[in-house]
């Protein structure tokens, strides 16, 4: 028997075909179609070309269904893991200052960072709507890679699904993150104490205003960029000078939602000084026209930190020394009176309740 001669696998033509088969895949279509989620070659091409293309240098191992992390590596950084997940569904996908990809990376980093954690790695799950432009996906993934690289986190695992046209809004991104909390850091929503000071790291409402303007429905001309940012560096700077009793990033629901959650969890009263709230003049004008309030508007690069009263000046100085905290301010304090309730001292000298909104802010009639 002459196996070697008969074995078609040794045929040069076959070897040539196999070489091509092993080449890294490429997406040649202009739009995502159902085949890109079908688990076959089209999906592999998509992953090779776009996902590995973007995240390959960020620690992604596309050959396995999971990322693997050595425990001793994690243990060098702290004594607890922080673990979080977030889904991103923003319209439009691109807007002044950022896009869904940057939000998906920074948002999850911030959810880790406000626990005191140093973010370590992320996963990325994509839900693509049939008909999405491949270039759009390429741009978003590139943006995610850029944000992850800038923040020093890896993107190590992920998933891709395609749903029929009309079953999603272009592109949904879900990122899950793991971080390590250094020994001794323990901000918690129930640690507010009377006398504590409340700080924010900058202007409120920029992201929500940017999105509302970018949607174009309001026909308002304004250049308001989103404030997206990864906040873990500034969090490190803050912990270097003080214990932090509680910390939250003020995303959906804005400052009002965060303060109410903290006040309720701690059964403490919080008083905000309205005239101390940092708000960009453009955003203020925008809110005046629409009858909205910056305290209810979403941010993507702002956090609320509650620190012991005597540490407030140095906490403020540490924030202001960081590029993401230049407009930081002490905006209020914690008191015993009115447990679970947040109030605002208005510029006029009155005091009113600051509650969460029921749903979205709805512009008023007149």
């Amino acid at each position, binding site marked *: 028997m002459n196996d070697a001669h008969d074995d078609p696998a040794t045929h040069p033509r076959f070897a040539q075909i196999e070489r091509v088969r092993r080449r890294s895949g490429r997406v040649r279509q202009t739009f995502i179609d159902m085949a890109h989620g079908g688990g076959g070659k089209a999906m592999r091409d998509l992953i090779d070309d776009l996902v590995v293309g973007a995240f390959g240098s960020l620690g992604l191992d596309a050959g396995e269904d999971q990322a693997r992390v050595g425990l001793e590596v994690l243990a060098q950084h702290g004594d607890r893991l922080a673990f979080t997940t977030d889904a991103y569904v923003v319209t439009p996908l691109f807007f002044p200052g950022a896009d869904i990809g940057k939000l998906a990376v920074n948002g999850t980093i911030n959810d880790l960072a406000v626990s005191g954690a140093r973010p370590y790695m992320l996963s990325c799950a994509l839900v693509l709507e049939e008909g999405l432009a491949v270039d759009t996906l390429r741009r978003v993934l590139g943006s995610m890679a850029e944000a992850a690289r800038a923040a020093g986190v890896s993107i190590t695992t992920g998933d891709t699904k395609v749903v029929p046209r009309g079953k999603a809004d272009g592109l949904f991104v879900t990122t899950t993150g793991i971080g390590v909390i250094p020994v001794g850091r323990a901000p918690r929503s129930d640690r507010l104490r009377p006398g504590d000071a409340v700080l924010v790291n900058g202007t409120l409402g920029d992201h929500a205003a940017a999105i509302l303007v970018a949607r174009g*429905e*309001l*026909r308002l001309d304004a250049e308001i960029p989103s404030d997206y940012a990864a906040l873990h560096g500034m969090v490190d700077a803050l912990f270097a000078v003080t214990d932090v009793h509680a910390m939250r990033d003020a995303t959906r629901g804005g400052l009002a939602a965060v303060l109410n959650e903290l006040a309720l969890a701690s059964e403490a009263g919080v008083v905000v000084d309205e005239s101390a709230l940092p708000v960009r*003049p453009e955003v*203020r*004008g925008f809110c*005046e026209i*629409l*009858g909205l309030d910056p305290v209810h508007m979403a941010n993507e690069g702002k956090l609320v930190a509650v620190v012991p009263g005597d540490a407030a000046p140095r906490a403020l100085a540490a924030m202001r020394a960081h590029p993401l905290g230049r407009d930081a301010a002490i905006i209020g304090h914690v008191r015993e009176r*009115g447990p679970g*309730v947040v*109030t*605002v*001292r*208005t*510029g*006029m*000298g*009155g*005091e*009113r*309740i600051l*509650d969460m909104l*029921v*749903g979205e802010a*709805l*512009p*008023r*009639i*007149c």
Partner: protein
Amino acid sequence: MKHVDEFRDPALGQAALARIAALVPQAQRALGRKSVAEGGAPIKIMEVCGGHTHTIFRYGIEGMLPDDLELVHGPGCPVCVLPIGRVDAAIELARRPGVVFCTFGDAMRVPGSDASLLQAKAQGADVRTVYSPADALTLARELPGREVIFFGLGFETTAPSTALVVTEAALTGVTNFSVFSNHITIIPTLQALLDSPGLSIDGFVGPGHVTMVIGMPPYDLVAQRYGKPMVIAGFEPLDLLQSVAMVLEQLVAGVARVENQYARVVREGGNARAQAAIDDVFELRESFEWRGLGEVPSSGLRLRERYAAFDAERRYGLVARRVADPKACQCGEVLKGALQPWECKVFGTACTPETPIGSCMVSSEGACAAYYNYGRLSTVRRIPRTPAKEPAA
């Protein structure tokens, strides 16, 4: 911010508050009334407009006023006075196949008999929030295969823009656009309020933006026939404080006049073009139902016969239906100023902004929503502390 901060100046605010505090006892003496501490009644001033109610609470003004002055919140919140039957009709229109129903955001959450527009949208109705009726007309042009209906809401403030859009639709031959008019007028409503028995209002702060359109003369009857001071006011906190002081000054002087605090916006004769636009497109209904006030003669606007093609009521053959308010709801008493929001049986317990029973809890201009969202801490001091009930033996 220019043109805004000047009207929120804390020092001027404190000065106005001091003036009000000095005027209140003088007004009580002028009216021959004892102070509240001596068993008398407070001076009651009604702000008619929901925008003023919002300002009062947004800036915490309520809590800074003397105990002997009570601000009573009037019926001037267009969303709050919308009766359930009209909300049901709006939802019925929105659920029709092919219809795109456009509304101001305020009206999305107003409860009808069994749903709100927001819930109707979740169930598949195409309901969209717009910022002006012009947006709805644009949508009609962009969606020629669909029927676009605009939910016309509001007093004379918003009626002109609805009227102009109807005129434009007629001129440019847009055939897939109509208006479900729930526009209302202020004067007949004020009159109904002044005629209602047991009303104990000493003076009025009048609606600035409505008056910008209709002008000052229509209010003469408030001063002349009913002898109540009326001051047309702007919407910034200082506007409001100054207007309250002006009402008090009239009470002290024993006069009743219509005065204009909002002179930077309101002209004596109003806006003639806006009045002409309303008159061209709308006519008065014989009667219109208000939540809480019931039927008020000549208080609602419907499209004139020549614009019948743009009138959603005629176009879709809507039948007017009256639906009684939920039994527990006391919005009517609150709208008339007969009851303070916190005196309502369900305020803040069964009826909250999350689960509103009545419309006053929905709009940010509604008195109950304003109390709940902004005022519940500063106003509880006015509520007598009643001892907890003994458990039943």
